């Protein structure tokens, strides 16, 4: 049985090594940064058109809507690719070689793959911050008002929520990717997942949805992927932070159980013929 300290050291080094590998070439992030920048610019113009004459839509001002989009897309862009790597590893049989190690497979890959994505998230977040300051102006008052210490505290909560969003993304995508043990073609599953995630809280806040749909969506994991950190960024309140982070933690528990269950069943089905 591995001790907690050795597990933590292993996770830390896995995350750090993956981060270094990804950061070996800053150019790796060029494509996603370019696409992200383009999305932010286009949507800032779309919202400007949509808000013509309206001060608020569903409680969001134009500035809030643009900042919301900037933060929601950080999660979608930075943590949206776990599925492809994992699914490819299962389909190609590479996963079999990863099994021959004395580690907790799910835990190790959480550390490694989330760690690898942090460099990209960092670059995109920085780009989003600069883009927001240029396109919108100052950061939302709900986040930074009331003094530096309070502002830092609230920002830390938003960063924590973003980290939890990445964790939830990992576990859900891990479970989806491992469906490749049973399905020869599982990309369609991810496509459906991605579209739900996009509509429920990434492209638009859930308050923009019809009331019944918004209420229903809170019983799904999708608002906790992008909506939670973006909502806290533009309309921070401690009550809402507790509710949203509580939801994120609950869904992470569900996602973790799903990922571990899928792995336990799927790893028995590893089949790779030939060298």
């Amino acid at each position: 049985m591995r001790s907690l300290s050795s597990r933590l050291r292993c996770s830390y080094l896995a995350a750090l090594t993956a981060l270094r590998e990804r950061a070996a070439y800053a150019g790796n992030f060029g494509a996603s940064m370019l696409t992200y920048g383009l999305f932010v610019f286009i949507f800032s113009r779309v919202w400007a058109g949509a808000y013509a004459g309206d001060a608020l839509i569903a409680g969001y001002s134009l500035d809030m809507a643009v900042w919301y989009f900037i933060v929601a897309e950080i999660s979608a862009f930075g943590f949206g690719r776990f599925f492809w790597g994992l699914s490819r590893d299962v389909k190609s049989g590479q996963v079999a070689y990863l099994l021959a190690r004395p580690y907790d497979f799910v835990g190790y890959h959480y550390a490694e793959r989330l760690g690898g994505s942090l460099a990209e998230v960092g670059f995109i977040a920085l780009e989003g911050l600069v883009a927001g300051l240029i396109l919108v102006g100052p950061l939302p008052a709900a986040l930074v008002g009331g003094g530096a210490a309070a502002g830092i505290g609230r920002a830390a909560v938003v960063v924590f929520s973003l980290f939890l969003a990445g964790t939830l993304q990992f576990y859900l995508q891990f479970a989806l990717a491992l469906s490749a043990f049973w399905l020869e073609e599982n990309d369609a599953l991810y496509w459906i997942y991605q579209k739900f995630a996009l509509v429920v809280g990434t492209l638009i806040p859930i308050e923009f949805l019809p009331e019944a749909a918004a209420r229903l969506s809170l019983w799904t994991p999708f608002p906790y992927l992008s909506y939670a950190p973006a909502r806290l960024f533009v309309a921070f309140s401690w009550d809402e932070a507790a509710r949203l982070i509580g939801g994120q933690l609950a869904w992470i528990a569900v996602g973790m159980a799903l990922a571990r269950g899928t792995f336990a069943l799927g790893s028995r089905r590893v089949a790779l013929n030939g060298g």
Partner: protein
Amino acid sequence: MAVIEADQLTKTFSLRTRPEGRFAALRGMIRPNIRAVEAVRGVSFQVEEGEVVAFLGPNGAGKSTTIKMLTGILAPSGGGARVLGLDPSRERRRLAWSIGSVFGQKSQLWFHLPPSDSFKLLGAIYEIEPKELARRTAALSERFALAELMDAPVRKLSLGQRIRCEIAASLLHKPRVLFLDEPTIGLDVVARKEIRALIAELNKEDGVTVFITSHDMGDIEKICKRAIIIHHGRVVIDESMKALKHRALSKKYLGVRYAGPVDLELPGLSPSKRTERSARYELDTAKHSLAEAVRALASRGELEDITVEDEPLEDVIAAIYASKSEDEAGAFGASRRVRGAGDA
């Protein structure tokens, strides 16, 4: 003491095939044709501690599948295996502490980072204390001559350098058994020689049991004491290298070159290749006396050159590989098999 035991080890894969005819794709979705492919069919053998065993066979014979079952990567469909007293498929994680594996075509090193980073991560995976890890890394670095490679990104290393790093990485946790699946694939002559020397040294100095698959007969002849040949998923030969080489001695290649044209036909023996004044004969020493053949050829004319060569081990094994059906392979194996005889 046996450290690897395979008992009637079997692996059957299910292969989905598309039905023929109209609406084949649609019918395939509803009721796919599933074909069973028997990759390994009841393989049994034992490997003693400290042995270096070659596990040979043509492509598709079941070598890699067997190694994957022995390392716990694949669960067998039938039979059983024990490595260091553990059941690989049920106790994979426990077993991983005591075995090392290198799959020549798969890398365990991070491509854009120097090997030292991968070594640190592997050290953490195997719970090696940082000080101890530094000591082991230094020792392996010296033995495998990695000092200058440790800080270069893996993508900048030659294949030979990378494989040296891969083997060193697989030894960090001091495994008792090392599984090498085609470790010299794609390497040049010099790199192959280096890797072979290192494997032999590991076995001799540290007593590591080595189970190796390779298509390179040089690897086998130079470092292995025993060969298990698998064909069509079954063991057809399991004997010492000494015994296997002895088979090669039963066939000789005799080459002659004369100063002028001579009659090259010998009683009961025709040349396999000939020109007007040179010939090459394949002699089965059970049927023909080598000495008599040499005497007879020397009396035919003025000899400029004469050579006698053993049948290359590669040819002996190629003859087994070339068997067209499993029965043929079985018959070939049965006729040649000398289980346990002449063990080194």
